[in-house]
């Protein structure tokens, strides 16, 4: 029983990390209609930017902002100079997925000679362990959970209460109609890539910090869980991604405690498959992309 409770605590941490990654990923798809498989590589590239700042004696929490800024700019540039030209030419969604896969491989291979293949770790990887009964969390992990909650609330506020958020939802629902109504959709999309890129960068640093050590190859692992949470919640649905993150994060840890770590991912993805069978649109995709946000 104590292991189960401990696993629940670990699940909260996993949930927080996945949520940060999944919300950005799903917003990119929901608003720009782009399944960006390079997301994991941008995460890890941002994590390395923060790592180099951290090595220069910048606190990891400040370096995290650098990672987020890098993620924002890098994602924006990828969209501007790679994805948008293809989309303008009318490349189909499947074709864009392949393009993003190519971008992912290019980023990984371009980074390899720069960052090398050795594992690295942030200087502040260790922090005090606090125990709440059977739940044991470090200060870093608690900060990560709080950070995720704050970011989720901020995303909620952005989408629900700001003009930009409303413009995003309008663009997601019907870009042509939004344009005809005077919404500068191109600028909205630029803003989306900057915001989701920042989320991506932030998630990369958080995931790397949570992992203790990371390498250039860690991007794929980060992407898979984010993708699973996004699809489970309903592709394009930020709130769905949050729910997906809760389910994936908790289920993976709890199943490891109840059965065996061997089945950790099996159980999580079995649930994903089950949901896809019973509800192909995902948990929250009832009213179309981003509709639930309003």
């Amino acid at each position, binding site marked *: 029983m104590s292991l189960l409770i401990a696993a629940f605590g670990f699940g909260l941490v996993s949930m927080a990390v996945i949520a940060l990654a999944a919300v950005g990923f799903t917003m990119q798809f929901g608003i720009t209609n782009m399944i960006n498989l390079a997301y994991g590589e941008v995460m890890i590239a941002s994590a390395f930017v923060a790592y180099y700042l951290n090595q220069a004696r910048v606190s990891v929490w400040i370096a995290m902002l650098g990672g987020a800024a890098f993620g924002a700019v890098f994602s924006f540039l990828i969209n501007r100079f790679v994805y948008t030209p293809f989309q303008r030419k009318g490349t189909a969604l499947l074709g864009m997925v392949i393009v993003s896969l190519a971008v992912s491989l290019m980023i990984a291979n371009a980074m390899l000679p720069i960052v090398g293949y050795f594992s690295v770790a942030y200087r502040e990887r260790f922090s005090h362990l606090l125990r709440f009964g059977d739940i044991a969390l470090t200060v870093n992990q608690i900060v990560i959970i709080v950070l995720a909650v704050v970011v989720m609330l901020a995303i909620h506020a952005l989408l629900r209460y700001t003009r930009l958020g409303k413009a995003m939802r309008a663009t997601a629902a019907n870009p042509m109609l939004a344009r005809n109504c005077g919404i500068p959709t191109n600028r909205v999309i630029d803003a989306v890539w900057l915001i989701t890129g920042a989320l991506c960068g932030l998630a990369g640093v958080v995931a790397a910090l949570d992992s203790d050590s990371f390498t250039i190859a860690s991007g794929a692992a980060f992407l898979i869980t984010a993708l699973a949470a996004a699809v489970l919640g309903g592709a394009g649905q930020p709130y769905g991604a949050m729910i997906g993150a809760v389910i994936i994060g908790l289920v993976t840890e709890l199943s490891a405690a109840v059965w065996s770590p061997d089945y*950790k991912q099996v159980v999580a993805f079995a649930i994903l498959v089950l949901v896809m069978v019973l509800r192909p649109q995902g948990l929250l995709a009832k009213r179309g992309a981003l509709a639930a946000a309003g």
Partner: protein
Amino acid sequence: MREGRLRRFLALPASAMVLALTACGTSGGSTGGGLGSGDLLVGVLAPFSGADANLGPAYYAACLAAAPAINNNGGVGGRHVTCQKFDTRGEPADAAPAANQMIASNSNLMAVVGCTSDEASAVAPIVDKAHIPMFCMTGQSEFNKTKLPYFHRLVPADIYDAYGMVGWVQYGPNHPAWNKVALVFGDDIGSQSFVQPATNALQHFGKTVKNFPIHLGASSFRTEVQSMLAFKPDVIFTEALGSAGTYLGEVKELNSGQTIPFIGTSATIDPAWFKDVTGTIGVNDVVQYYRGVDLGYTFSGKAYDEFKANLQAAASTFADAPKYGQRGSTLHLYDGIIMTGLAMVATNSKDPTVYNPKIKDIANGTSGATVVHTYKEGLDALNAGKSIKYVGAAGENNFDQYNNSQSGYILVKYDAQGGEVQVIGLTPEQTKKLSDAGGI
């Protein structure tokens, strides 16, 4: 053990016309006649990207060190040896096309090195079918009695690594009694091959042992660690390439800052592994709590000195090359390439069907063979009409009928700079007891 599994040499595709020239040759003519002309190529077939991207560079470094050892002494019958990377990404699906492409586009392959457990099962048959000697870095048991004649393995099978680790528990000095042992290896088939022999041997010696498999590459193992800690182990057996840093970091974190002693396989004697683990638990903890097993390298002598010097010089091509000075796989592959070059000279043939069997002769030596330590010494002896036994940078080789070379184990630790420190060597009697206890 993922790395340290397969090494294979690829040799050149057969050219029947050289047979007439090789008919007379057991000693070395270096005129280039039967040996052909143009550069020779050593294919480094290994992961250079993906989760195991840290493995390929160790083998590439071996080739970069071996090439000048041969080239500075006239090459192989005047032919210079070059090295080329062929990236398997650590995936069989990528490895098989990479192997096919390597063979199809390079008619000057003399050998292939690399092929880890990630891809050995996929590529070894392909390379063998092309009749190219290979030196592979895998410990997979399926190669213990392989029928692939071009396959060579200079590293031990995983089961022997497992016995070596049990040897630390039984015979290692200066540690308290380790009665409860947690086995922490990847949940893939290759990594789990350590588990059964280690379990058998430990139970034979009255120890309590439990397996805690982990999914390599996962971003965290907190629940797995918590479960393992509940077992209250005295010591952990592990390898966990690519994930050891994260796992052991979480062990320390969840064990109130206290690292549990851990014993690593021979693949953990590796600069990437050292950096990964020291990055999370710190150098002091690695020096204090790490134990490892390795083959009995001396890291000294004429062969090693030349290897080390060439490795230093290779930094101009590959900056990280000097870091592999004490990496067993790098030493072995270096020797494998040298032996292949000598085998070609000895048979005066560029035909791998002719020189492949000679590799074993040169490694094991025949009666009355002259012991040589470098390519130049081998060349001189061959030119003098002598048969040779090559004892190289990694020491003696002893191929069995399945081209598996096995030598004695040493128990080791790390120093603060990541250098290997030998503690003791396991005696043949101790090794036999361990092997008998393992029963595999």
